[in-house]
């Protein structure tokens, strides 16, 4: 058993932290949060230059051939520093879907372009029911003259407004089992009938409504097999859920660091507030939450990376990390007091993201329901 990072992973972590501190200062984060695009092309290409986009892709597809755990370490750092942009959508949701389900041709075409930073992907899964289950997929794709016509509304779709391709999860067959009859289509975002509307959100992350209004796509755009797309979605959701936990761990660590350093500097009653037990105990609880989230996330990530059955561990990690990150940000706000309630301070950038991260891919209650099912209840 080894709960630590390899030398290579330590190097990756350190280089990511150094790079992001320099290249993605909070000034840029704020600017991007406030913009419509939500990403910087310059930073995007620099990240691609470091090999981040292709980190977990095999070398034959332009990647570095590292594993999912390495990607998790990178995402933890991206969560620590906050990196606005479509990395998660493109690499974790889109890239891993193509890698998991794509044909040789699709992999050869798309993965190198993702790795080089040339294209941005978005995955259109959720709909107005906002659920992550197969039954929530109502968007239809109807076969017509050897092509498919997609019709439906996708909601809470991250980064679709800047995407070159949108991976649309659509229903191609009505079956008793809602997990049957689902097909994935990699749709050119410029296709006629695709309409993206940016939603204004708490985290100022870039979520969209994407309407597919009779969008015609070729049969070649199917990723995986027709009617058998759901297992790919499940596979990718499992990875994405752990990846989101890793971001949360990084974010929670940053919040803890911020709160602790403030508690050491801020003087009231003639002494640093960090010398008061009330504040110390907040910090101790935060540190315990961060540490708990980290190791439970690593365990789930390791299981996923090893292709072991991981549904229980992934649900445990997300159930715990969602709530833990929430508690950590709330305590930090309490420690920071009024300064934390200003737009000038960085704290709200994390608080907003903690809320969004808790919900995406299923909140703690949703994950607990999965845990209960996995326990055979």
């Amino acid at each position, binding site marked *: 058993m080894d*709960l630590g990072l390899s030398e290579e992973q330590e190097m990756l972590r350190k280089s990511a932290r150094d790079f992001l501190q320099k290249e993605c200062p909070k000034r840029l984060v704020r600017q991007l949060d406030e913009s419509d695009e939500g990403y910087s092309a310059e930073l995007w290409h620099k990240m691609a230059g470091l090999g981040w986009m292709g980190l977990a892709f095999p070398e034959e597809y332009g990647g570095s051939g590292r594993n999912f755990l390495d990607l998790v370490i990178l995402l933890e750092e991206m969560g620590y520093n906050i990196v606005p942009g479509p990395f998660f959508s493109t690499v974790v949701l889109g890239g891993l879907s193509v890698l998991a389900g794509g044909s040789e041709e699709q992999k050869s075409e798309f993965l190198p372009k993702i790795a080089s930073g040339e294209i941005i992907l978005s995955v259109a899964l959720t709909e107005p029911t906002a659920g992550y289950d197969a039954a929530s997929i109502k968007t239809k794709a109807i076969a017509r003259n050897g092509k498919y016509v997609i019709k439906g509304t996708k909601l809470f779709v991250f980064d679709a407004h800047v995407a070159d391709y949108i991976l649309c999860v659509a229903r191609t067959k009505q079956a008793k089992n809602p997990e049957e009859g689902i097909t994935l289509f990699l749709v050119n975002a410029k296709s006629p009938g695709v309409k993206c509307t940016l939603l204004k959100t708490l985290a100022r992350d870039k979520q969209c409504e994407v309407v597919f209004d009779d969008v015609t796509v070729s049969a070649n755009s199917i990723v995986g097999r027709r009617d058998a797309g759901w297992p790919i979605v499940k596979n990718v959701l499992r990875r994405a859920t752990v990846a989101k936990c890793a971001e949360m761990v990084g974010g929670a660590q940053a919040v803890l660091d911020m709160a602790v350093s403030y508690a*050491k500097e801020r003087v009231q009653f003639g002494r640093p507030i960090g010398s008061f037990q009330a504040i110390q105990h907040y910090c*101790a609880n935060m540190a315990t939450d961060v*540490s708990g989230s980290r190791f439970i996330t690593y365990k789930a990530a*390791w299981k996923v990376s090893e292709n072991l059955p991981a549904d229980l561990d992934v649900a445990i990690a997300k159930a715990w990390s969602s709530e833990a990150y929430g508690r950590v940000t709330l305590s930090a706000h309490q420690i920071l007091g009024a300064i934390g309630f200003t737009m000038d301070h960085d704290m709200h950038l994390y608080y907003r993201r903690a809320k969004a991260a808790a919900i995406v891919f299923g909140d703690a209650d949703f994950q*607990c329901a999965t845990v*209960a099912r996995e326990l055979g*209840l």
Partner: protein
Amino acid sequence: MDFKFTEDEEKFRREVRQWLEQEIPQRWIELDPGIWEETEESWALAREFQRKLGRKGWLAPSCPKEYGGLELSHMKRLILAEELAYSRAPLSIEVEVTVNWVTPSIVLFGTEEQKKNYVGSVAKGDIIFCLGYSEPNAGSDLASLQTRGVEVGEEYVINGQKTWCSYGHLADYCWLAARTDPDAPRHEGISIFIVDMKTPGITVRPLINVLNRHSFNEVFFDDVHIPKENLVGQKNKGWYQLVIALDFERSSIGYAAANQRTIEELIKYAKETTRNGEPLAKDPLVRNDLAQLVVENEVARMMAYRIAWMFSKGLHPSYESSMSMVFISEVMRRTANAGMRILGHYGELDRDSKWAVMNARIMRMCLSSLSIGVGGGSNEIQRNIIAIRGLGLPRK
């Protein structure tokens, strides 16, 4: 990163598990004494079992072989502790104190003779120590302890009162912290002694715990003469020895493993019990409660694994142990709470009722879990340690 145990470790786990299945006495299983619930009968069974454990070498897994230990790897010690607790093996808190605190301290600070005398006997399961730390006015503020040890010729003479001495009425020796220099700053005048509990001048008075059992005691030392060679380590350096000992092997894995067993029993109960014609396991609130417990206990288990892993890497966890301790203590209280919610009125019944369920484990746990998070350093003190040692927050 690798969360797998090696084949050799898995083999060891199977060996331990199989041995425990065979060796835990049936009578012990019938008595099912939970933490702080030992009786004279269960104590006798535990002592006998301890000798069996000793013969396997599992009572001194960490100690050097020359003193009867096994020098097991940290991971195997973790596995051993996990399996012992999960199987509810006949052990008391004092065995853990003796094995995890006292013997490693003797190995680290004791004389050659002390190592030979005491470590070997602990390893064989022949002797048990009780802790003589707390006093009526020295609890969380342990360094304010007042029990005096005065050097007179070839002896030390001990006077004072200790309290909360768990199993002091049954232990063979007391691991005593006493003040040997009242004029020195308070952390610099404390020494550690081994005191034979049969020494004249020692009076043990029972204190009855909330489970209505006699598990701890007040111990009075009235001109107790002990030989000089029973001083452990350096005179007046006892506080530092004691603080180092507090960091030994406190992964809290035993609590997490024991709690896992209880959660599994609650899950089984929910699956097998119907209420208003519906299985309890279909009740969304029950499902959520149980899932939440599983989530929290798994986090606790990983925290404990982390401690063992750190030791295995030659690192020295300190505040990490406090995190683990605080966390599992609160998970256990929440387990008792959730258990009560799930069992409802049935959770209130003691074991002598024919209506009792789960052998009244939840009602007993409601009481016993009050002690976890207090004993061995309260959660407030543990949080201070996390904040000051772990996060570097200022004392003043």
